[in-house]
């Protein structure tokens, strides 16, 4: 990361500067509002488009989409085969895809392999299936440690992975977006696909947790 004089000026507007920066509020709420108003006034942004984008990711797209894909794969061996071979096509069968999920890869947890996904460079994450990433996923602690100490990270999430299991970390350094297909919990043979989906947590699809044995423990 290289220091950038223009950047410093913008992020620290109070030092040795000719302009009167008192006009720029320091509160991010006011600064962002001022920028939005400016871009709208210049005809560069249509607020209806802005609201559409925000509403989509705040209310419509989230881990329930990924859970449906996982549940289908658990319930239908042929779907699972297609999902692992060509994730984009299989995911679009359920109507999902698009921004930040243009090129999907699904990796399968097995009794001998545990997968975990990270983006050490920033925050890459499969939006169409999981929504926007949580703060911890984008944070320096997770990004720095997931590759060097995945077992320690997993323990912090309460996930025990035995020494006999191979841990595979997927660093999302390109435009491929990774989703973990967790192991199907035991004693779920009688469940419907919808009931199975309720067992699939966001964290289990990132690979920091396993799919839970009981429904209702999942964060939204």
């Amino acid at each position, binding site marked *: 990361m290289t*220091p950038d004089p223009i*950047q410093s*000026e*913008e*992020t620290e507007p109070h030092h040795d500067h000719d*302009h*009167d920066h008192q006009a720029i509020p320091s509160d*991010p709420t006011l600064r*962002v509002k*001022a920028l*939005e108003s*400016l*871009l709208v*006034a*210049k005809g*560069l*942004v*249509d607020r209806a*488009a*802005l609201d*559409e*984008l*925000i509403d*989509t*990711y*705040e209310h419509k*797209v989230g881990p329930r989409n990924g859970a449906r894909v996982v549940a289908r794969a658990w319930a239908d061996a042929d779907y699972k085969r297609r999902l692992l071979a060509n994730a984009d096509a299989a995911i679009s069968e359920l109507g999902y*895809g*698009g*921004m*930040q999920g*243009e*090129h999907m*890869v699904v990796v399968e947890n097995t009794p001998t392999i545990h997968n975990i996904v*990270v983006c*050490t*460079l920033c925050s890459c994450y499969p939006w169409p299936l999981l929504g*926007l990433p*949580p*703060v*911890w996923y*984008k*944070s*320096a602690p997770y*990004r*720095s440690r*997931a*590759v*060097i100490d*995945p077992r320690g990270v997993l323990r912090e999430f309460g996930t025990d992975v035995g020494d006999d299991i*191979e*841990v*595979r*970390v*997927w*660093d999302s*350094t*390109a435009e*491929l977006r990774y989703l973990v297909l967790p192991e199907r919990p035991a004693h779920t043979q009688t469940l419907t696909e919808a009931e199975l989906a309720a067992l699939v947590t966001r964290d289990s699809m990132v690979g920091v947790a396993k799919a839970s044995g009981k429904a209702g423990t999942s*964060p939204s």
Partner: protein
Amino acid sequence: MGGMHGMGPIEPEQGEAVFHHAWESRVFGLRRAMGAWRKWNIDVSRHEVELVPAADYLRMSYYERQFAAFLVLLQKRGFITADEISTGAPASGSSAAVPALTRDGAAQMVVKGVPTSRDVPVPAKFQFGQEVRAINVNPVGHTREPRYVRGKLGTIDRDHGVFVFPDTNAHFLGERPQHVYSVRFAARELWGHAAAPRDAVYVDLWDDHLEPA
């Protein structure tokens, strides 16, 4: 920052909201809406975030960084001026001549995405199962080759096909489409013998990041 120590504990938040403040959602939406003008590409905007000075980068929240980088990018690409930011008012005669992204356009963008694969016949330099070495380079600009794999030996695990090369695209130096591979690096190759013997890190790398072992 992959492999660095000292960044503190991971702090998951129960029942976390998608956005923690309304302004974060506006930053998120504004970046996408302005991206539709195609005056930059996704690699340029990612690189701009990396240009936030390191100490600020670590101190700021995710959306603070995004906002800071966005302000710089808007000025670099000629959308707004520092004076306009100061006054909050558009310079006269500076309004866009073409309509901005519409609600329908935004909905289309969400559904279609912005694919970065390229349907061009570029031969793959490496094959499944081949041993490769990640080249040892330390560029000043944007690169997708993380520091922790440079000079390390790995194996081609799969070929994802041909994609835009961000290392040049981030600097407006062209897309230079080439193959992207998942390269498997043994944890012990990366981190030494304290690492678990069977564990591995898979990193997506382009042809230009790799050489035959």
